[in-house]
């Protein structure tokens, strides 16, 4: 005797939530069929036997609660809940930003690193760079993209691994080429500044999207960039390319190391210098990306996305203003 029950669900923040919920509930013996309707935020459950709707809601609700979803018979006023979350996310995000800028201000990172660049010093410089102001661009970009793909895509871990592989391999290869060919692939300030501006615009847009100001239905609005990211993020090539592309993003440390690789005059030395540098930046960047992926699948997901959005908007604005200053378009607004 089949019976259909209809529940309202909250916490479905991503397309993959449908798959996740259906997978979890389908495993139950008494359930014949589960259909999640993301648009209306409802779950239709077909049970094999007669079941009390309330009891069923309790038992099924308990199963998906660890993933941050909850069931109800009546549609909840979700608007209020979202507003509450942004008021939690805003202070947390701002606190992160303040801590980040305090760290830059403190001068802790400004100890001199003497001698010539060896793989060891490059690694240390990479460690420093990964918490320096370069984090505003590279880290902010990684955080925004990781959070975004976690929101949209269930295979985010694979994408993140590919990104890091692209970055490490790209630094090794391009560093080697710098050593071998010298000025031919020379580092152009203006090109890297323009890339930096693009990266900061992407960050701000993704940040607004994560916070929920640009809601999912409206992401087609800033067409070009968003479409690009939405289309390519599922492929293998894109994360590799973005990882490699971080080589050209503006970062004083990266540029200093590129000069060191360039003046080494050998493929192997140049490659080792850039690879060690990228390896030094890896722990922090890995924490940011894999951290977002695991937070994105926890029950803190809604808070995490909004907090990440606040942080990313802040870093993106900082990078944007800095980039415009570096290009001489605006007068310096700050001196951190």
């Amino acid at each position, binding site marked *: 005797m089949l019976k259909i029950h209809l529940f309202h669900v909250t916490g479905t923040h991503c397309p993959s939530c449908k798959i996740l919920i259906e997978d979890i509930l389908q495993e139950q013996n008494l359930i014949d069929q589960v259909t999640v309707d993301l648009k209306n935020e409802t779950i239709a459950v077909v049970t094999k036997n007669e079941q009390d709707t309330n009891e069923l809601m309790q038992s099924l609700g308990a199963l998906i609660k660890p993933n941050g979803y909850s069931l109800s018979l009546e549609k909840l006023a979700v608007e209020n809940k979202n507003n509450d979350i942004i008021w939690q996310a805003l202070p947390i995000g701002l606190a992160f930003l303040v801590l980040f800028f305090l760290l830059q*201000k403190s001068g802790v990172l400004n100890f001199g690193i003497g001698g010539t660049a060896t793989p060891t010093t490059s690694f240390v410089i990479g460690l420093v760079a990964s918490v320096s102001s370069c984090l505003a661009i590279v880290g902010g970009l990684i955080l925004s993209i990781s959070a975004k793909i976690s929101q949209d895509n269930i295979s985010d871990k694979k994408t993140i691994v590919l990104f890091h592989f692209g970055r490490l391999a790209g630094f090794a290869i391009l560093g080697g080429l710098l050593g071998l060919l010298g000025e031919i692939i020379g580092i152009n300030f203006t090109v890297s500044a323009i890339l930096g501006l693009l990266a900061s615009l992407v960050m701000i847009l993704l940040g607004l999207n994560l916070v929920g100001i640009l809601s999912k239905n409206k992401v087609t609005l800033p067409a070009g960039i968003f479409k690009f990211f939405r289309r390519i993020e599922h492929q293998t090539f894109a994360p590799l390319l973005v990882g490699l592309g971080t080589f050209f993003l503006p970062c004083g440390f990266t540029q200093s190391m590129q000069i060191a690789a360039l003046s080494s005059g050998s493929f192997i030395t140049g490659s080792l210098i850039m690879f060690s540098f990228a390896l030094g930046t890896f722990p922090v960047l890995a924490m940011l990306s894999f951290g977002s992926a695991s937070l994105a699948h926890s029950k803190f997901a809604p808070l995490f996305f909004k907090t990440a959005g606040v942080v990313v908007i802040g870093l993106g604005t900082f*990078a944007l203003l800095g980039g415009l200053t570096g290009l001489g378009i605006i007068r310096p607004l700050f001196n951190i």
Partner: protein
Amino acid sequence: MVAIVIGGIILLSGNSNRNSMGSDGKNVEIRDGVQYITIDARGGYSPNVSTAKAGIPSKLIVSTNGTYDCSAALVIRSANYQEVLPPTGQTEIDIGTPKAGEPLRGTCGMGMYNFVVNFD
């Protein structure tokens, strides 16, 4: 939470005084008719604001000491200068003969550090 934010803002604004201290001319020197203005680059530029004389052929000396951060990626638009400085050393940049009231502005590649030399 609010306390942290306010504390941060106070610290930020308090600290910025350290960097924005103007020079008292100690970093400007005239030798053999050429004016040398020395700026230290590491974790920012110091002094942040310098004052030098106009109408004298001048050179900027940017001094690095284990500098790998953004301040090594120096951009001076008015002198058409964009280079990554050596990690340690002194880089001499010809800035011609400055005119009064036309300050020289330098910034790092990412734009978060800057300095200015006023000429009078």
